[in-house]
């Protein structure tokens, strides 16, 4: 493993909300092309971890490195200038639990908005690329629809296309299927599996054990703000090393063989 291949390096991240320590010295690295699934009971700090990675929350301690460069705080410890921070963060794509599409923009405009407005890419190029991405997630025919007219699964696929449009080095998924009706989960997972196969670097917070089992290159098990276990999925699911992971998996035993796969 050369230093160059590490897209994301989370080093000793700690986050407190008041007295409550949500994340405690969390460290892990993500190589290029990996799909890392972050599993754990609710309240274990999974979402906060993602929010710290893209600086929506500021960690109280620790560092985030993207392609070897520190995000948010410089090596000297000085807080990074906003513009510099944006330049780095724009290479982190994010998919939200409740889709978070912009309601006043059409599907196509949702996808082109950040490339045009933030990355200042030429409009025609951004539109071409957005149309290709919409075709990829199977929504080319919805380009002029407003998000309100889409089903949850369609909204989330637009969310994924929007995140891909900024040409991210790493894509963060915050429970992308938790807000969906069960019958709509599959269409989103199909797209995510496709991305994993194509070698997109992804960090996925999820409760979809089926997805973690067969799409993840690595599973990180988080409990009470700490990384309790890190393992390839086959080993994690077959032989969890810790009691807490075993208990967690037992609770999910029903959905692990999931009806939500394909």
């Amino acid at each position, binding site marked *: 493993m050369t230093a160059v291949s590490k897209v994301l390096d989370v080093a000793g991240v700690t986050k407190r909300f008041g007295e409550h320590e949500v994340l405690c010295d969390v460290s892990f690295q993500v190589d290029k092309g990996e799909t890392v699934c972050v599993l754990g009971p609710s309240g274990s700090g999974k979402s906060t971890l993602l929010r710290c990675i*893209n600086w*929506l929350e500021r960690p109280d301690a620790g560092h985030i490195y993207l392609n070897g460069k520190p995000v948010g705080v410089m090596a000297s410890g000085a807080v990074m200038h*906003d*513009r510099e921070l*944006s330049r780095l*963060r*724009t290479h*982190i794509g*994010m998919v*939200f*639990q*409740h*889709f*978070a*599409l*912009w*309601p*006043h923009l059409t599907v196509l405009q949702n996808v082109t*908005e*950040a490339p045009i*407005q*933030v990355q200042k890419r030429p409009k025609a190029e951004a539109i071409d690329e957005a149309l290709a991405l919409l075709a990829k997630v199977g929504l080319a025919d919805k380009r002029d629809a*407003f*998000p*309100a*007219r889409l089903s949850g699964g369609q909204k989330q696929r637009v969310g994924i296309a*929007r995140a891909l449009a*900024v040409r991210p080095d790493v894509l963060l998924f915050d429970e992308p299927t938790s807000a969906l009706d069960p019958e709509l989960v599959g269409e989103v997972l199909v797209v995510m599996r496709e991305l994993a196969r194509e070698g997109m670097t992804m960090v996925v917070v999820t409760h979809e054990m089926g997805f973690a089992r067969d799409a993840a290159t690595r599973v990180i098990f988080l409990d009470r703000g700490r990384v309790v276990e890190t393992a390839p999925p086959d080993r994690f699911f077959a032989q969890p090393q810790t009691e807490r992971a075993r208990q967690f998996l037992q609770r999910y035993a029903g959905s692990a063989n999931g009806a939500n796969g394909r």
Partner: protein
Amino acid sequence: MIRDFAVVWGERSLLLSGLANTTVLSVLAASCALMLGIVLTPALMARRRVIALPVRIFVDGMRCVPFLLFAYIVYYGLPSLGLRLDNWSSGLAALIVYNTAYMAEILRGAWQAQPREPIEAGIAFCFPEARLFRRIILPPLLLTAGPVLGNQMIQIIKDSAFLTIIALPELTHAASSIQSRHYVPFAAFITAVLLYWGLCLIVEAGVSAIGRRAEARR
């Protein structure tokens, strides 16, 4: 009675110029107040108290002053502070400043009712603050607040009638000139009321057009 209305008809050019003045005054006041309100809204929502507090005081203060009194202060009061404005300027200024407070408060309320995630997505996608407000936060605000902003527009049209007291030749002023000249109070004032009503209908048509746009996006 019919004859009274005939008298009013005879003065139609006076009424129409009053109507035109009321329209110009209201449209100018509403658009300026809305624009200034848009500028003040982020300040009202600011986390830093040094920014939020003065704006909060202005907004709350304005909302507690009767408009008539405020117009008196601008027209009769400011000259004693050395600022003398003619009746058009002071009338327009009073309408704008007074309604800026309302517009800002309306938009602040709409902002607080917005779901947090789309705004957060804007932050995650690295929109700089000003662009985040202009591109991501503001458009849904204007759409959802449309009906309330329309109400405020109607309020502005009605408040503009107070400006007759500073001799601004708007619709109410025209109606009272006609009634004092010919002593036809009922016909003159009813005609004015109907014309105000017509203006409000136009505003409401505009509001429902915005409402339809908002509906498609909800």
